[in-house]
């Protein structure tokens, strides 16, 4: 029997593959459909292909960082909800992200429960 509600799609963009795997597992248990990109360019491409409801985006990545990636995404997509992963309380990067319509910030390292609640909150808005 098919579920009546289609699964909500989440795109994870993070260069740390173990963290990607962990977040994927946590969120899949919550019933989301997950796509993973290990760098900014792959993330931009996947966003266009899969048109997810929400993106979890790491700010610190080699080559194209989170802010740059989001700037590219926002050029064509001003709908997708974005949750940013950042180190503990970095006011500077948060200021950078202010104009890019970011819904929530989550500082690493985070609790699994926190991740789930932040994403639930962002999707509900």
């Amino acid at each position: 029997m098919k579920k009546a509600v289609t699964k909500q799609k989440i795109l994870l963009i993070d260069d740390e593959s173990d963290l990607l795997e962990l977040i994927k597992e946590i969120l899949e248990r919550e019933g989301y459909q997950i796509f993973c990109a290990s760098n900014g360019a792959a993330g931009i491409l996947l966003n266009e292909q899969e048109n997810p409801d929400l993106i979890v985006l790491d700010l610190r990545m080699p080559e194209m960082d989170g802010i740059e990636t989001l700037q590219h995404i926002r050029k064509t997509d001003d709908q997708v909800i974005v949750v940013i992963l950042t180190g503990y309380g970095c006011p500077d990067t948060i200021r950078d992200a202010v104009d890019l319509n970011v819904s929530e910030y989550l500082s690493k390292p985070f609790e699994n429960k926190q991740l789930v609640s932040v994403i639930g909150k962002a999707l509900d808005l």
Partner: protein
Amino acid sequence: MFGLLGIYENITERKRMQDDLARREAEMRTTLYSIGDAVISLDINGCVLLMNPVAEQLTGWSEPEAHGKRLEEVFCLINEKTRAKIDNPVTLVLNSGRNATMMAHTVLIASDGTERPIGDSAAPIFDQAHQLTGVVLVFRDLTKERAAEEVILDQLAIIETYQGLVALADMDGKLIYINAGGTKLLGATQAEEILAKNMTDLLEPTDFKRFTDEALPVAIKERVWNGEHTLKRMDGTRIPVSQTVFPIRDPQGNLRHIGMIITDISQQKALQEKLLISEKLAVMGRLVADVSHEINNPLAIIIGRTQLMLSQSDGQQPPLQCQLETLLQNAQRCKTILSNLLTYSRTISKQEAAVNLPDLIREALDAVSYQYDMSTLEVAVACNLSAYTKIIGNKDALLSVFINLIRNARQAMTQTGKLTITITMENESQLRIEIHDTGIGISKSCLEKIFQPFNSGWQQDKGTGLGLVTSLGIIETHGGKLWAESAGEGQGTKFIILLPHRNRKTQVINGLED
């Protein structure tokens, strides 16, 4: 023929002698008239015979006018200070038959009333039979010398007033002059305590070789040597100094003295050291920031994975679950340590600037709300200050203090509660900031310990025991105070900060130097 010749020869001889005499007198007059000093010759009675033009100019008498007059009439001397008449030295010479020189501070009054400081001497004249026949008086206008002397005295006053050490040593190294600044720098009360010591007595023994092998030869060869030494004071204490050594030569170029100028550079040294430390701290700060960011990811994975495993193993294997919980607790403790280190690293080596306190506190509230749920709290910020009242400080450092205190307050209140932050004027020079929570409070015994390092009052997973120590340090470097008050457990806690405000800018900057 013979007789005639004899007379002729005689006449020739006399003529020749007369010529000689005239020639000598002419020579003597020429010499006398060309001498730069004033010369008056006198007969045995002390009356003027000859006067050269310099003497005419200084006395205001012409030679023909003065001729035959007693010296007292044309040569009027007084004491510069007492203005009493002084006997001229000629009388003394006539009485004693010996040379005489004049006392110091003698002033000659010319016929037109002009006064000039002069120096003079008088010498007796004897004939071939050693009979005293007269006196020669030689004197000089000392106006220029006196002016030059005054300039030298002025310069000496400058050298004496100069705070650094200025000293002269003879070629054996024995000190023959030291200024008042040098006397004080060495910790002596009188210059005499230091004079007669050797230059090297003022140096740290380890600097001797450098002084004799490098400083002196270089100074003599290249006219000056500059370097740093350690100065040994009278009481044995040492201070770092910068030293200039230079030779003083006579007009022929022969070495006469060694000059030294020494300045105390202990303050510069201390400042340099502080700078060095702050540079090291800045490097450390960047390192800490980078390392914590790098560790955040692996730590997130450890915490996340452990939590996942715990949720999957729901009570099935109690020992395993227990171990996983220990693992999780300790990983979370690492997380708190990292976040404190990161906060601390951001406070290091930042410039101070004007800080708007209400804005800063709002920013701190925002920052805490990214990490903790503040929505269940009632938060009130009341600022009772004019818009012009600002403090000077390190914005990031102060921000981290407020983040830390607000986070503490959040953690002290289990679910609901009220967080009140007030900013008021404490007195003319200080602001008072109170951060008041209605949380668990602090017992009296704990209150004394909360500002000690690694003495966190929190349970293991909540605090590292570094937050308040760091905060206290930051407030103190801003010239302020930080303390906590609590009526006891369950009674809430109040943290009070006093900070000097803008009108006391100098005080703030002094505080930051420490």
